[in-house]
């Protein structure tokens, strides 16, 4: 598979259906995208104490994210070095050891193999235990509470990887001293579709709102026939950042019943944000925002909640979504309860927005997978050449709708996919 220029055509701004349907593209992507990028694995508030752990996936690799005895976050491939069995079998908890249930090999919080049943009798004391610790994901870094890990031994650090996107993450995550905390429980659901269709939508497709969410416009919950608020460039804009990350900001006011509950707290957050952020950033507090950190971590904030989610790849035609709910640490109980209820109603697996997005991604990959359809590319030309740089905000911006951010994801994807240098197959 070498014709990456045909799959993502930078000049004509098109993408081949094979990018979403071809098993060979998918296999290559595991190593060249998920094997190289910084992938979100957990939020700091999920594992505050030594011994706390959560399990997750990095692409298709099951991992356990834990805080060791010295307070350092470590990420291990959740697979015993002896026969490959999962060593941590619960979603979250606190432990001192990970013991494989199969033969009992036992690892400590630093991944060291500290227990081998019948070490003397079975191995005659010859097993080099120091060589058989858990596989540790080599690099782990945090940004504003978000913990990312990378399978790449070397490469740019997380700050550099996030690049211009940091400005938008700061706006979202660094408004108050308390920051955000994760609510208990995770929304997990399985969808037909390719993970990139979901990632691109959150990274810069507000064009779909009037169509896919037409039912919500009919009910008056989103402005009918519009994909934006009334403050273009300033508070209504989309961003294509360097390195494939995308962002959407919308100045759509909260409905009155929501504003009534969150209004006072929002004003307090805004006041604090003015102390901590630039004027252009604090101006954005209270807007709706949606973004994708390349490749598969998205954020969405609306009606008082912030959800952080992963689009786990599960084959070319299946996505497993894991979504967490976050609230500001200082939010009063009424705001927390409303935020939680709104996330559940709108963007959970039963969400009145979410359900319809899922249907689009699933039927799309089915309909574009045939030998004939595959020959004809998908159009990503919207807004090409019309984005501009803004003195206050990093990245190339344009008011919605535009696809500059969406195509930015494929520009980054193509660069990674055409680079075979690190493959170890």
């Amino acid at each position: 598979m070498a014709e990456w220029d045909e799959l993502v055509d930078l000049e004509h701004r098109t993408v081949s259906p094979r990018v979403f349907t071809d098993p060979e593209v998918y296999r290559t992507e595991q190593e060249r995208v998920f094997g190289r990028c910084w992938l979100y694995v957990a939020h700091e508030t999920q594992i505050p104490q030594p011994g706390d752990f959560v399990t997750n996936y990095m692409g298709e690799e099951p991992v356990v994210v834990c805080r060791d005895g010295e307070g350092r976050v470590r990420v291990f491939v959740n697979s015993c070095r002896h026969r490959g069995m999962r060593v941590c079998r619960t979603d979250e908890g606190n432990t001192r050891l990970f013991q494989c249930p199969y033969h009992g090999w036992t690892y400590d919080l630093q991944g060291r193999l500290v227990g081998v049943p019948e070490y003397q009798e079975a191995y005659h004391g010859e097993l080099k235990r120091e060589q058989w610790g858990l596989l540790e994901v080599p690099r782990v870094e945090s940004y504003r509470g978000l913990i990312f890990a990378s399978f790449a031994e070397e490469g740019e650090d997380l700050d550099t990887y996030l690049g211009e996107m940091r400005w938008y993450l700061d706006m979202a995550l660094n408004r108050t001293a308390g920051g955000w905390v994760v609510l208990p429980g995770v929304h997990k659901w399985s969808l037909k579709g390719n993970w990139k269709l979901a990632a691109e939508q959150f990274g810069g497709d507000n064009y779909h709102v009037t169509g896919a969410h037409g039912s919500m416009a009919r009910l008056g919950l989103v402005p009918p026939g519009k994909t934006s608020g009334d403050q273009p460039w300033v508070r209504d804009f989309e961003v294509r950042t360097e390195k494939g990350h995308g962002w959407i900001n919308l100045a759509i006011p909260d409905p009155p019943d929501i504003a009534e509950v969150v209004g006072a707290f929002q004003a307090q957050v805004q006041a604090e944000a003015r102390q901590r952020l630039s004027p252009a950033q604090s101006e954005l507090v209270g807007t709706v925002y949606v973004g994708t950190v390349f490749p598969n971590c998205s954020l969405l904030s609306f009606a008082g909640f912030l959800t952080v989610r992963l689009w786990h790849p599960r084959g070319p035609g299946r996505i497993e979504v894991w979504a967490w709910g976050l609230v500001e640490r200082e939010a009063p109980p009424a705001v927390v309860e409303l935020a939680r209820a709104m996330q559940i109603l709108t963007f959970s697996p039963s969400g009145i927005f979410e359900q319809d997005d899922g249907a689009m991604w699933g039927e799309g990959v089915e309909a574009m997978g045939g030998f004939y359809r595959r020959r004809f590319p998908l159009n990503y030309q919207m807004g090409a050449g019309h984005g501009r740089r803004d003195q206050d905000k990093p990245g190339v911006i344009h008011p919605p709708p535009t696809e500059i951010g969406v195509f930015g994801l494929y520009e980054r994807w193509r660069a990674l996919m055409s680079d075979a240098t690190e493959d170890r197959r």
Partner: protein
Amino acid sequence: MSPADLRREFEDLLYHEARLLDHDRLEEWLELFAENVRYWAPVRANLGRGQEDFSREHRLAHFDDNKASLVMRVQRIRTGMAHAEEPPSRVRHFVSNVQMLETNDADSARVASNFMVFKSRRGREEYLFVGCREDRWRRIAGAWKIEERLIILDHDVIENITVLF
């Protein structure tokens, strides 16, 4: 009324409800719920035996609806633009294991039931949702209404939930 008769009465009510859902009589289905209803389905997790706590404060859920949001879900389907259910799926609710949990008061009852919900869409796209419900019913103006429905789904990773339970 004997305990067996009471159980049969609720069995009939639950079968009737299933029929309303399967035959797209959603407006009539809404009438089964009291104005102050809580309709909720906590997320599930893989934890040690006995460690899952549905009532943990602010825990996420697949549903946590009141009457107004249930009404909105039905209105949304009626717009004809709720694309995940256009054209509508074929849905069948199976209700079993109906059991009275509490019947101290003649005007209230707690009723448990198991369900399987089969959904079929285009071609061989088929889904099965399995779980149990614990309902708190109250007799209001002579008619039984659901004041609380706790839906315990047996899935940790679930499919797109376009059906009602």
